[in-house]
């Protein structure tokens, strides 16, 4: 299987923040969710993958190319959705189409118009008058209208209502029906990613905590419930984090280390929260 993205030890140093040796691999035909709290380094990672900022260290291959040195035509195959709609507010859908037609050799105006129409975007209405959901749909239509093989989406679901979020996930699942295509999506709305992603990469304080296949990850951990004493008796090397409540304790533990305690399925959100909490303690 060819990899759409290979990231090894990606590092970027700023005065007040560092992205420290982030590594992951995204195989073609898959969706990877990049998760982490606000300020963890998700957007920085995406900027480095696009060559918008220069990395301090590490190796990056996006569709086989180093984004910092690749020819501009390499970006023909990337569809990008930023966290905010990047088009000037005085623009209409038609204006966006004109700019895209001049920028991308393989821009498909009819496909773009069809998508805008199916998203309920008025061709002449100014972006200024769009809701957040409409702006995001316009960004997605732009990203999907020039034959991209790899979509990079930075927090596309934040601010969207559940219906719009569900529609977006359907679009992404439809997009990867062609196995040559792949998606990297960052979000802190983890229920969305749990539905759509094949792989999850978790970044915390600039470091990648894990990058795993989602199903293996969900299979790896369980939530164990018990008294504080029972939880304390578990193998500490296999306990990720503990949450103390009024009526007992709950811990995220590796499957098999629950020691006969009552368990519950752990979701991606649980895993992320316990890792962060464990780190804070």
């Amino acid at each position: 299987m060819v990899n759409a993205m290979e990231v090894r030890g990606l590092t970027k140093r700023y005065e007040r923040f560092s992205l420290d040796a982030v590594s992951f691999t995204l195989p073609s035909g898959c969706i990877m969710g990049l998760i982490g709290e606000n300020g963890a380094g998700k957007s920085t990672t995406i900027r480095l993958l696009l060559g918008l900022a220069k990395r301090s260290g590490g190796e990056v291959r996006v569709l086989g190319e180093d984004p910092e040195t690749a020819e501009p035509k390499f970006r023909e195959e990337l569809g990008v959705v930023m966290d905010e709609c990047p088009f000037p507010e005085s623009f209409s859908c038609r204006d966006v189409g004109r700019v895209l037609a001049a920028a991308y050799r393989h821009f498909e105006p009819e496909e773009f118009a069809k998508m805008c129409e199916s998203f309920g975007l008025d061709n002449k209405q100014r972006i200024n008058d769009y809701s957040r959901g409409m702006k995001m749909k316009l960004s997605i239509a732009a990203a999907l209208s020039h034959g991209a093989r790899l979509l990079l989406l930075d927090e596309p679901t934040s601010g969207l209502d559940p219906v719009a979020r569900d529609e977006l996930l359907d679009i992404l699942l439809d997009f990867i029906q062609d196995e040559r295509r792949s998606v990297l999506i960052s979000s802190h709305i983890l229920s969305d990613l749990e539905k759509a992603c094949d792989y999850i990469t978790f970044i915390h304080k600039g470091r990648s905590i894990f990058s795993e296949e989602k199903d293996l990850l969900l299979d790896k951990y369980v939530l164990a419930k018990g008294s504080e004493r029972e939880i304390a008796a578990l193998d500490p090397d296999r306990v990720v984090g503990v949450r103390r409540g009024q009526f007992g304790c709950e811990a995220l533990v590796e499957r098999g280390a629950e020691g006969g305690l009552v368990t519950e399925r752990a979701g991606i959100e649980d895993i992320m929260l316990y890792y962060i909490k464990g780190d804070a303690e």
Partner: protein
Amino acid sequence: MKALLIKDLLILKGQSKSLLLVLAVWFVISFINGSGLFFMVLSIIYGMLLPLTTLSIDEKSGVERYMMSAPVTRAELALSRYVLGVIGIAALSALGVAASLVIGDGLREALGGAAACFSIAALLLGVTLPLVYKFGTEKARVISIVVYVVTFLAVGFIASRLGIELDELTGVFFALPLLGLAGLAASVVVSLGIYKKREF
């Protein structure tokens, strides 16, 4: 480059009504005064401000970052504002000459005035764009004003020291656009260096 210029022209299209209104008011004032110079000076300087207008909207919308994720180079992004500025200054210089002739100025006077204004606008653009690229539109606005004032005061001081009357310079006005374009070329080199290192 084409995509960047189309983006800029579409941004300016949204402001075309106010641009035309301002030009019309300046023309009427010049017409009443019986001299096209007022219209010419203001309109050509206005041409220089066009790329700065689009730049401030670019900054606000984040479209620069988006364009850099498209098949566009850093050099094209830096150069596109120069191209837009020179097109704007040249178009408004031609309009300035036409307006001066309509108002009743002589052809030599109109062409000399346009050449001088074109050069000054080109030089100002050359000074301003690297500042905006380096510091952003807000900070660069203040720095630019200081640079303009110091430059004009210095030129005035040197001219008065040497006993040169501005009228005596009319003859060299026709050579000034070359100076303006040379200044722009030097400015482009600086801007390309800034964009090469820039992070989006």
